[in-house]
């Protein structure tokens, strides 16, 4: 446990000692800011009964943030350590492979959550200027951040896997982006005017991140997407651990 906590701390330090962490937070702040302006503009033109969180998640900015942050955050986890040579020092320390993988995942996940924190501030600001108290409640806020955490976990675990596989950080980032974009496009497929019939339609709807995120943003805490995202995260982390073990013992 000590090794895991030490490595998580080191991961956080690595993000915020270098410019990477600040760039990430700035990028997310900028895009969240743009979406905030966008939502305010729309609300001025056409009032709506939908929760403010749901308004945010139908903008393109949210998915841009999700698709861009995960590759940038996770590309350095393994690929950078290997190129810098510090991976050898790390893997010859008395730590388990799963501790290393889990610490790198947790570190990235925490940075991801830190980057999203300003969103809560924006939501509070909007609710302060609204007469309708139901526009934002704790349940909606919790389910929104729960959804963010779960979908982010999938993207980050995918990024860790790509970084463990790739020799170069750039390749790791491109692979993560490609995988994320693939999942996103699969989600869009279920929103098409003529959805697929039969089991393919059901499957597409079951894996549709856009629908799930909208539901989370409405305050609907459905266990099915929760199980899906938790399973996918565990699956990708398991694969990452196997890759790390394979690299050690090949």
């Amino acid at each position, binding site marked *: 446990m000590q090794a895991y906590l030490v490595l998580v701390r080191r991961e956080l330090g690595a993000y915020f000692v270098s410019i990477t962490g600040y760039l990430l937070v700035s990028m997310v702040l900028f895009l969240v800011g743009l979406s905030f302006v966008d939502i305010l503009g729309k609300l001025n033109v056409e009032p709506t009964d939908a929760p403010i969180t749901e308004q945010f998640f139908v903008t393109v900015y949210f998915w841009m943030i999700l698709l861009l942050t995960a590759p940038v955050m996770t590309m350095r986890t393994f690929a950078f350590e290997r190129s810098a040579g510090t991976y050898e020092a790390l893997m010859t*320390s008395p730590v388990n492979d799963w501790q290393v993988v889990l610490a790198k995942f947790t570190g990235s996940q925490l940075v991801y959550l830190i980057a999203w924190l300003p969103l809560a501030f924006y939501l509070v600001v909007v609710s302060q200027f609204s007469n309708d108290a139901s526009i934002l409640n704790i349940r909606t806020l919790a389910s929104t951040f729960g959804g963010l955490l779960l979908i982010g976990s999938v993207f980050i675990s995918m990024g860790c896997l790509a970084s463990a596989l790739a020799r170069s950080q750039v390749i790791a980032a491109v692979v993560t982006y490609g995988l994320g974009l693939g999942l996103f496009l699969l989600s869009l497929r279920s929103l098409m005017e003529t959805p697929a019939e039969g089991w393919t339609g059901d499957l597409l709807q079951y894996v549709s991140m856009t629908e799930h995120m909208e539901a989370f943003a409405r305050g609907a805490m459905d266990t099915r997407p929760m199980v899906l995202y938790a399973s996918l995260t565990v699956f990708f982390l398991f694969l990452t651990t196997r890759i790390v073990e394979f690299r050690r013992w090949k």
Partner: protein
Amino acid sequence: MIEVIGLRKEYPGCPAVGDVSFTVPAGGIVGLLGPNGAGKSTILKILSGYMPGTHGTVRVAGFDVFHQSAEVRKRIGYMPENNPLHLDMRVKDYLTFRARLKGMGAREIRDRVAAVLDQCDLIGVDRRVIGQLSKGYRQRVGLADALVAKPELILLDEPTIGLDPNQIRSVRELILSLGCNYTVLLSTHILSEVEITCSHVIILNQGKVLASGTKQNLLDGLGGGKEIHVELAAPESALREILATIEGLEHFDLKPVGEGYLGCVLKVRPGFDLRPVLFEMARERGWVLRELTQVRQTLEDAFVRVIRDHSQDQS
């Protein structure tokens, strides 16, 4: 401390280590000596648990590096080639981080970090960022990292590579001081380094152990002995006759060096000192002796000879 039996390591299409066996006793500094590409770094990577061998058994402190890798990693301090460090961290923070990672307690960490900072002469730079340090200081940080958890075995891969002569000297002195308290396996291709720091030597070439033992045993076993260079004015035939009768003389070469002098290179068996005998021989016969020099064979001579013989055998 280290037991390597029949170790082989093959990279795809390229054997890196071929059937290597050696043992390293506890205590002292052992040099793993060999030219570039001899398999030194690969052996150190296997010993440190970074990668497995393809065949064979490797034990460190009685633990198998493959099956009991975690136990082995608890007992070693490893400084890889090129000394990779987190350049964004401060020296003291880095050592504290490494000590924590190695499972040390808070109080122990404070004491050990202070001790290794002192031992490695890093006190004045402990708050500096590692990326801003000179190469010599970075090597010291790498050594301090290897030392911080009081390991039973320290593995150092080319610790003085890329340093200037002053830095090399200070890092060597530091390594030399470790020999009293730790078992150190030092991989290098620099002969003078081994000559100065190591008590035992293992010579590797093309993934095979060509010789191993103490420095003196190695020189003796390789026919090291001594050479005596003599220049004297004497009739060649008479000199040849007398030299052939001298006990302890293994081999000699004679050639004229001008002005009526003969130059002799005498190969002496270990345990004999023929300088008084040669002096008496010249004095009794009235031969003018203008040079009598004993040249000790160095490890470099032995190394070059072993590598050359091995290469000739291969070809």
